[in-house]
Structure formats: C-alpha cells, structure tokens
C-alpha cells in the first residue's frame, strides 16, 4: 500500500469521472442501437463503445493505468495476444474465400421483417 492520503483523494476524483463516463456511454450505446445504420456498422459501433467502457474500467478501476510491474503487464499482453488468436477461429474456415461477399445473417432477419 504505497498510496498516500492525497493519492487516494486524487484516485477518487478519477473514479467519479469514470463513473459518469460509463453512465453516459451506456445510454449512448442503447440509443445508437436504435439508429438504422445497418448490421455491420451497428456491430462496429457497439463494440467501439464497449471497448471504450472496458478500457476505462480496466485502466482506472483496476489500476492498470499506474501498473509498473513488467511481469504483470507482460502476462496480460500475452493473454490479449492469445485471446485474439482464439477470436480468429471463426474466420479460419473462411480464409480461402476472402473477398467473396456473404451477407451477414442479421441482414436477412431485417429483410424478413420488412416484408
């Protein structure tokens, strides 16, 4: 526990700001989902907002912003790398068809509703 009293006060004001930002972004992501921008763009938008919120939680609430231990950050970077490898699985079966157009399933769903 190295943080002094002043440090902690400083932290608390950061917590308040992040709490506000998270609340605003939650509202934004819900509102954004009602905008008709198409499925693909909608997914991108929602993921950008979620990633922003997640980064705020991780860096401020979980104190990664001030983390100095190389072993700890190194482990987390390694985890993120392998996490991306894991997320590549869905596109692995499609690598031979890169460039050919396949509509997202949701597009059909919306089209069905329109009829």
């Amino acid at each position, binding site marked *: 526990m190295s943080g002094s009293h002043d440090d902690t006060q400083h932290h608390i004001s950061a917590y308040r700001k992040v709490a506000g930002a998270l609340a605003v972004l939650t509202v934004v992501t819900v509102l954004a989902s009602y905008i008709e921008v198409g499925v693909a763009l909608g997914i991108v938008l929602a993921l950008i907002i979620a990633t922003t919120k997640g980064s705020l939680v991780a860096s401020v609430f979980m104190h990664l912003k001030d983390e100095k231990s190389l072993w700890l950050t190194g482990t987390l970077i390694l985890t993120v790398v392998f996490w991306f490898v894991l997320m590549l699985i869905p596109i*692995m079966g499609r690598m031979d068809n890169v460039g050919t157009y396949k509509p997202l399933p949701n597009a059909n769903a919306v089209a069905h509703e329109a009829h």
Partner: protein
Amino acid sequence: MENVTTAEQVSHAEHGHDEHHELSFLQSYVFSLDHKVIGIQYAITAMLFLLLGFTLMMIMRWQLAFPYTPIPVIGGLLGQNNAQFIAPEFYNSLGAMHGTIMVFLGVVPLAVGGFGNYVLPLQIGAPDMAFPRLNMASYWTFFCGGVVMFASFFVPGGAANSGWTSYAPLSVIATEGQTWWLVGMIFLITSSLLGSVNFIVTTLQLRAPGLSFMRLPFFVWAQLVTSFLLLLAFPPLEAAGVMQLMDRVADTSFFMPAGLVTGDGPLEISGGGSPLLWQHLFWFLAHPEVYVLILPAMGIVAEVLANNTRKPLWGYRVLVASVIFLGFMSFIVWAHHMFMTGMGTTMSSFFQTTTMIISVPSVVILSALLISLYGGSIRYPVPMLFALAFLPMFAIGGLTGLPLGLTAPDLHFHDTYYVIGHFHYVVAPGTIFALFAGIYYWYPKATGRVMSELLGKIHFWGSFIAIQFVFTPMFITGLAGMNRRLYDGGLEYAHLQEVVGWNATMSYGAWTLGFFQIFFIFNFFWSIRNGKKVDDNPWKATTLEWQAPSPPPHGNFTSPPEVHRGPYEYSVPGADKDFTMQGEADPAKA
C-alpha cells in the same frame, strides 16, 4: 541472513514448530497444506491412475491380438457383456478412457502436480508454495475429477466411448458416461487453473535471495512455461466442456448441425451448431497440452544429465530461450490436428508452417542436451539410464511427427497407427521414462533412502526393450493403413492382412512391459523402509533442494538459503570438489 534474523521471525519459527506438533493425522497427511505432502499425494494418485490407464490398454490389447476370444482369468470380472469377448462398446470405452486417464489424470498430475509441487519450491529455496490453501484445494479438486472419471465406468452404458478427443456430434449423442466425462473434465481443468496460478506466483515471487532468473534450474523454467500453457490454454476447453454439457443435458445445439439423423431417426434439436468448433476449442488446449506433457520431462532430464555428466548443461541460455519460444508457438499450431477437416488450403499452409517452426526449438533443446554429454565423466545410476533413454526415444517420437505436420503426407497417415506410434514415442518412452528418472532421482530427497539399484536396472532394461516391441510395429501397421480405432485390429480388411500379425507382437510387448513395472512398484514401497540410508545430497548435486534435510521438514530449510551462483557449477576449475552448490558462499568473499 541468519545473523539478521529478527526476533519476530524467531517467534514465527517457534510458532510454526509448535503448530507442527499439534497437527492431527488428517491435517498432516490428508488435508495438508505442506507442498511436499501435496506433491506426494499428487504423485501417488497419478501413479495409481497411470497403472489403471495402462491396465485398460492391456485389456484392449487382448482383443487386438486375439480377436473374439475370451480373456483368461480376468475375463469374468469385466461384466456379463464381456464374458465371451470384449464388447465393441466396452472396447471404445477402454480406448477413450485410456487416453483421458493417461493424459489428464496420470502424466500431467505426476509431472506438474507431483514433481512441480515437491521439487519446485525446494529448488527456488521457498518455504512453501505461495498459496498453500489454494494448493490443497487444487489437489482435492483434481481428486474429485478423478473419482468422477473412475465412477463413470459403472454408470449405464459404461464410461465415455467417443475417444479421448470427444468429437461432436458423436459425443453429444453418446451414452451417459460422456456426461460424467465432461463433469470430470471441468473438475480437472479447474484444478489445473488453481495449480498453475500457484506455480507462477511461487516461481516469480518466492525465489531465494540471489536466485535471479538466469540462475534458475532448467526444471523451474520448464515448469514456469508449462504453467503459463495450462493457465491460458485450458479455459477455452472449459468453455467448450460447459457447452457440450449444455448440448447433452439442455438439448442445445452448440456443436450440432441441423438435419442430423441417427439410427433412431432425425434428432429433435434446433441445429445450427458447428462440430468443427469443438475440434478447434479442444485442440486449442490439447496441442499446448502436448507441451505440458513434454516440458517438465525435459526439465527433469536436464537436471539428471547435468548431475551425472558432472559438467554444466551445454547452452543454458539457449535452452531457456527455446523453452519460452516453444511455449509461445504451441498456441498457434493446434489446427495441424485438423488438416482432414477441410478448413481450406490457406489455413492448412499456415499451420503447416508454424508446425515446422515449432520443431526447431524442440530440436535445439534435444541437441543441447545431447551435446551436454560430450566430454563429461558420465556416471550411470538408474535415473541417468532413464534420462539417457529419453533422448533417442523423444527423437524418434519427434522426427516421426514431422510428416504428420505436413498436409500432404498427413492425408495418408491421419487416424492410423502411425499417429499412435508417433505420440506414444513422445509420451511413453519419452515423458514417462523421464518421470521414472525423476522418481529415482528425487526419491532420496523425499525419504532419505535410495531405491534399489539392482531392481531399478531390471526395471529399466526390461521396460526399455519391451516398449520398443509395443510402439515400433505401430509405424509398420500405420504405414500399411491400419486405422487407429479398429475394434478387431484390421482383421476384416484385405489391405491389412499382411500386417495384422504385428498386433500380437505389440500385445506381448505391452504385457511384458506391464510385468517389468512390478519391479518398480515393489522397489518403490520396499525402499521406503529398506533402501540404503543416504545423506542430504547423495548425488552430489548443486541445486538448492539438496541443501535441505532429507526429508525436508515443515518450512523446508534449516536456515534461509541464499544463492551465489548458477545452477550447474560442476567440475569448476580450481574448486576443491567437482560440484559447487548454489547456496555455497564464494570463498573469496567469505
């Protein structure tokens, strides 16, 4: 360090001493928090499971050698269905459970849970693991998983029978035993995760003063990398296990495609799942798992080789770099198990390339170990015999793997006995021999006595010769196209008529191998009381564990160790003896 011991530390030490006397039988042997007791618990449980897994295989080999004939003596014990000859369903259960038990309940718990727990804290000069309670929880979770797996033999329909890989959709529609298998796996995975967190924290945080990373024994490096593999590769399989459980008990369709028809007609499921997804998530773990099997073994072999050649390991830094690179690469080679799934040439080429790359550090490690022998004044105690045998055996296993990693030959080899021969050469005469080396090597540390040399040599030579008869013919039958899961060993196939005769050879080899293990089992228990008493450092080794008393007391070391040098300072020029221990102060400074 001793001089600066504070009064507080002394009071703690005394406190600990008192506690030691107050511990009941349950606390000191069953629910112990001591890493050495937990290590021995892991080792004994794992060895029992190794014996069980081996027994299952010896039963299978009867059906392969003498199809459709009753098993003598024990045939009646296997239930009514198997009284005449082994029923096909039971044969499938034996195969699936042999793999599962050997990998998840035998080799990994012995190599990581057993040796890791017992030796690692001693080698880094720590009083215990970083989280003793977590350590105990890890063992008991493993134990529960083992009980569930074992109990599954007695449920209706028998134990899991969809292979140790449990490929969907077959596994989803299989008998009840598969549900037990999944529950057991979830226990085992949870246990591994708890254990790996503990190992990493212990290695990074509890190293004795002076023990920098480049002074760590190679065994510790191997365990550290192994723990990272377990930590990051196992969770996706846990997720997959949960999903397959959902598929089985909640009728979901994670791994079930639409329009599936079985012998009972169309399945009433929503469909839309992906059978390939299971294979991806399974091999995302199971390929790193291969390195979980082999890395601790390499660590043990390195320790034993350096000790018995009486010279430093050749290329310590290269070994460390290789083992880290190996661990990293093992995460991006998994789909080489899936060349036959039609995932496309792009991905196949990618995984073929990474597979060729990962063979480089393996060869570097093996070469470094081999070169370490050059110019040494080699002793040949039993652990050294096993360690030396590891080198060519692992080489055969590794080199026969290369054609499997290339897409074109794999089309022919896939799912044949060639594959079985390949990975058994890596794991059986490779890893398990290294584990035997470890048992013979560290036995005096745990008991204060050495195991019998004569029985050990009988065990080694018998096993070494017999095991070649088990696995070498597999390359022959595999190249001839014998499928690995055939119930009758290929009796009904015209193209296999020339090679079915080898089945009997392999079976005799397996039973002989089993016979020679009796010498080991006897030796193991007999030597606890009757082995030759030895001092704390019988092998004249350099690493920290040999500085502790044998067996080490609670808290391990009589005085806090301090490290002054690298791990393998054998035959240092000008030294008064041919080994300089890590904890020995520099005479110049003293």
